[in-house]
């Protein structure tokens, strides 16, 4: 699980072009939205694409994203339970 969390932080920084953010700065329980990362609605859509592309998870209801993308902890738990690759 810890590896997955670190992997997610790397992917989020890369996919969302967070050039000024380091892996160490993202805490597992930090809110991904409405916090210091400054993510917006387009970033949320990119995270849905990331789930599909890298973990084979198709999010049928984008509204679920609000719970899933609360933090690295919630995102990693969801991936662990639903990943197909």
């Amino acid at each position: 699980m810890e590896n997955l969390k670190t992997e997610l932080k790397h992917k989020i920084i890369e996919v969302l072009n967070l050039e000024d953010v380091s892996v160490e700065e993202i805490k597992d329980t930090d809110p991904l939205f409405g916090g210091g990362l400054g993510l917006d609605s387009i970033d949320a859509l990119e995270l849905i694409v990331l789930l599909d592309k890298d973990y084979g998870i198709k999010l049928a209801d984008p509204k679920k994203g609000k719970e899933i993308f609360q933090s690295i902890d919630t995102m990693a738990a969801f991936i662990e339970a639903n990943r197909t690759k």
Partner: protein
Amino acid sequence: MRLLFWKNVKMKVMKKTDSCIMEHSKITVNGDPVFESQSETFHDFAKDAYKSLELNYPKFHKMDNLSKLAFLAAEMILKDEDHSRTAVVLANRSSSLDTDFKYQESINSQENYFPSPAVFVYTLPNICVGEISIKHKMQTENAFFVLDEFDEKFLTDYAEQILLSGKAEKVLCGWTELFQENYKAFVYLLTL
């Protein structure tokens, strides 16, 4: 009486107050070089310029290359002044083709079909005008034209109409052309 007033206004001469040129990994403001990089790609040049000029605007990294070009050139002359009454009139030749191609690549194959929302939002040339407007809280007119070549008279005439209408006090005008590694920005501020 109204005709006489219009005639008097028309006689006002437009002033070009500041200008910026960006090409060949170099930025020149009002004729003076302010930044130069040895970077071989536009992406690296833009990143170096962003860091060197201490712009501190993280959303910059999310922009496509055309928006980065227009944004950097605009930053050089807009600075931290109040631009709520500054209009923007830009033009280029290649529209958003550079990003259109990148988006196309993400949907070319059925096996690897992952259209990127973040790339898609830049598949219009006037998005760069939006980025500049958001940063400087501009609240007046804007336009983006796709032209065969830079036509200063066309842009100046358009800017003049905006200024004479009283809808703006200044107009950020210019040419922001980018396709792959070929790019040039020439932007300037016009006032009456």
